[in-house]
C-alpha cells in the first residue's frame, strides 16, 4: 500500500486535533495530557531531525537543548514565583511567568549554546560526532545535578503553569492548543526549510561534503547553522515540557533522553517531515499501554524497537509510503 506523504501529514494533524476533542467530550483530561506530551516530544524531535534527518549528523546530546529550554522556564518562573531577583552580570530581572518571553529566552540561549557546541563538535564526524555530543550532554547533566541554587538533582517545582494572554493554561485542552499550534508552525517552517536553498544545500552536504564543497558550498557553515536552528527548536520544546510537568530536573539533560529523541525519529522515519510526530505518538502510546500491561514492559518495548530497526527500515512513514527513504 502506498500512501502520499501529504495525506499522512493531513491525517496525523487531524488525528492530533480529533483525539483531544474526543477526550474533552468524554471528560478524559488525562488523555489530553498524554497527547500534549506526545506533541511536545514531537517538537523536540522535529528540532533534532533538522541535523539528523537533513544534515545526517547523529547528535546524541540533544537533551542539552531540551534541558536548557526547561531550565530557562524553571529559572525565570522560579524567580517570578518567589519574588527574588535574578542577577546576570549587568542585568537583573525579577523573572517572568509570561510564556512568549520564556520561549524566546529558551530559544535564544539554546541557539547560543548550540553555536558553541557546534563550533567544537562539528570538527569531528561519524562516531566521533556522536560521542562528543554525548560528552557535552553528560557535562550539562552533572553540572545541573550539582547546581544547588536551582534544586540540584531534586529539580525545581513551578506550582502554577505560566501565563499566555487570553488563555487559562491550567486547563489541559488550552495548554494543548498552544503546544499543537507551535508544533504546526514549526512543521510548516520545516517544510519550507526542506525545499529552501539552505535545506537543499544542507541535504547536499549530507550526501557528499566534498562535492558540496567543490560547488562552492561551505559545509561547516551550513551544518553549524542547522545545528543552531535545531538547538533552538528543541529548546522551545524543553520549555513547553517543563510547563507541562510544572517541573524541571537534571533528567531533562540525561543521555537516555537524547537516546529517546533519536528513537522517536527512527520509529517515525528519518528525515521525514512527520516522522518525529508519528514516532512520538507511537512511543507515548507504547509507553502508556505496555506500562499498564506488565512491570517488565521494557522488554517488550525493546523487542518492538528491534523489529522496527530490522524489518521496517525507513520507519512508519517509510512503511506507509512504500519508500525506504533515501536518507542516511
Amino acid at each position, binding site marked *: 500500500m502506498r500512501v502520499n506523504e501529504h495525506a499522512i501529514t493531513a491525517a496525523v494533524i487531524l488525528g492530533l486535533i480529533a483525539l483531544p476533542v474526543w477526550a474533552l467530550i468524554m471528560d478524559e483530561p*488525562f488523555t489530553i*495530557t498524554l497527547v500534549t506530551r506526545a506533541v511536545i516530544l514531537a517538537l523536540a524531535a522535529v528540532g533534532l531531525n533538522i541535523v539528523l534527518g537533513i544534515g545526517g549528523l547523529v547528535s546524541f546530546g540533544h537533551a542539552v537543548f531540551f534541558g536548557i529550554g526547561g531550565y530557562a522556564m524553571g529559572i525565570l518562573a522560579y524567580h517570578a514565583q518567589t519574588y527574588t531577583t535574578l542577577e546576570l552580570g549587568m542585568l537583573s530581572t525579577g523573572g517572568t511567568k509570561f510564556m512568549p518571553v520564556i520561549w524566546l529566552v529558551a530559544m535564544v540561549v539554546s541557539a547560543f549554546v548550540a553555536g558553541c557546541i557546534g563550533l567544537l563538535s562539528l570538527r569531528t564526524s561519524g562516531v566521533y560526532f556522536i560521542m562528543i555530543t554525548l560528552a557535552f550532554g553528560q557535562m550539562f547533566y552533572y553540572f545541573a*545535578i550539582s547546581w544547588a541554587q536551582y534544586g540540584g538533582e*531534586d529539580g525545581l*517545582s513551578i*506550582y502554577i503553569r505560566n501565563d499566555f494572554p487570553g488563555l487559562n493554561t491550567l486547563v489541559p485542552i488550552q495548554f494543548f492548543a498552544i503546544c499543537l499550534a507551535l508544533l504546526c508552525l514549526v512543521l510548516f517552517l520545516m517544510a519550507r526549510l526542506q525545499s529552501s536553498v539552505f535545506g537543499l544545500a544542507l541535504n547536499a552536504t549530507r550526501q557528499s561534503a566534498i562535492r558540496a564543497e567543490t560547488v562552492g558550498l561551505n559545509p561547516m557553515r551550513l551544518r553549524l547553522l542547522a545545528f543552531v536552528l535545531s538547538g533552538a527548536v528543541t529548546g522551545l520544546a524543553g520549555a513547553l515540557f517543563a510547563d507541562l510537568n510544572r*517541573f524541571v530536573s537534571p533528567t531533562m539533560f540525561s543521555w537516555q533522553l537524547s537516546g529517546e529523541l533519536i528513537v522517536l525519529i527512527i520509529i517515525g522515519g528519518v528525515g521525514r517531515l512527520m516522522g518525529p510526530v508519528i514516532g512520538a505518538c507511537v512511543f507515548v502510546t507504547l509507553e502508556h499501554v505496555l*506500562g*499498564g500491561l506488565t512491570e517488565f514492559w*521494557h522488554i517488550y518495548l525493546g523487542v518492538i524497537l528491534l523489529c522496527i530497526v530490522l524489518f521496517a527500515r525507513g520507519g512508519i512513514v517509510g512503511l506507509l509510503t512504500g519508500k525506504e527513504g533515501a536518507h542516511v
Partner: protein
Amino acid sequence: MKTFLMATAAAALCATSAMADVKVGMITTLSGGGAGLGIDVRDGFMLAIAQSGRDDIEVVIEDDQRKPDIAVQLSDKMIQSERVDIMTGIIWSNLAMAVVPAAVNQNVFYLSPNAGPSALAGRGCHQNYFNVAWQNDNLHEAAGAYANEAAYKNSFIMAPNYPAGQDALTGYKRMYGGALAGEVFTKLGQTDYAAEIAQIRASGADSVYFFLPGGMGISFLKQYADSGVDIPVVGPAFSFDQGILQAVGDAAMGVINTSQWNKDIDNPTNAAFVETFQAEYGRLPSLYASQGFDTANLLVSALEKADPSDADAFRDALRAADFDSTRGDFAFGPNHHPVQTIYAREVIQEGDVFTNKIVGVALENHSDAYAADCKM
C-alpha cells in the same frame, strides 16, 4: 495499569455500606535499579490494607521508573482521570518535590511513606501533606547524636554531591559536637570509592559517617572492609536495610546504623507485622516495608473516623494518628512530620541471614529542624 481491586462482590451485597468507596493512588518505583524500595513499600502497604478487612478501599498502583516527569504524568492521571482522594508511594525526594506540591494544591491528600525533603517540612509545608516516615535529616541527626554518645571526636563525613547528600551532612553536623577530619562529596552513582578510602586512611579520623543510598553503599562497604582501614563506620539505615544487607554480606557486620524502625522493636503490632509479612512474601520486611505498612494503617485509622470528602474532618483524623504503629508510639508534629524515637542498630547475622538489632536510643521523641518555619 494494575488495579488492585479490593472491593469484592461482598461490598455490593452489603446494603449497610453507606460510606462511598475510597480511591488511593500509589506512585512508586517498581522497575529499574531502585525497584527494591518501591516493591517493599507497596507490599507493606497492601498487607495492611488486606489485614484491615476493609473492602471499600481501592488502590491504584503505578510505576514511576524513578523518573520525575513520569511521576508527574502519573500524578496528573491519578488526579484527573482516576480522581483519587489520597496519594502515596513516592520513594525519592526529587520525585516527591515534583509531585507533592501540585497534588496537595489540588485538594488531594498525600501521605509520604518515604522521602521527606526539607522544602516540604518548613516553609513549604501543607495541610494536606503528611509524612509517615521521617524528615530527610532525621536519621543523619540521630547518627550525629550517636557519635557524641560514642565519644567520637574527629569524624570523616561523606555523601554524594546532590541535595539529599548535602542535607545528610548538614543533618549530621547539626547534632555532632566533635571536629571534622574531612568532608567529601562524591559523584552521584559512583561505584568505586578507592580514592575516598585512601583519604579516610590518611585523615587520622576516629570515625566515618557516610550517606550512600542503594548500590553506592554496597560498593563502599565492600571496598572499605577490604581496604584494611578499621576506623568505625556509622551510617543511616538506608545502606543497611533488609533488601541490600545480603548483598553487602560480612562487610557490614557490626556496623552501627540509625533507624526509626527495626524488626525487634518490642510491641505486638510490630511482631505481628514481621510475622505476617514474612509469611505473605517469603522475606524479612525492611524499613521501607514498615513505612508502607504504617502509612496504610494511618490511612485506615483516619477512614474509620471520617470520609475524605469531608476534608477538614479527615485531616483532623489523620493528624490524630490514632493507629498502632510498628514503631510503638507515633505522633505528628505541627508540620505533619513524625515525632519519634530513632534507634542505633547494629548489623548482626542470624543463621544465614544478615539483619539488625537495636543497641540503643540515638534520639528520643525527635522532631525536625524545620517545624518552626511551617505556617499552616
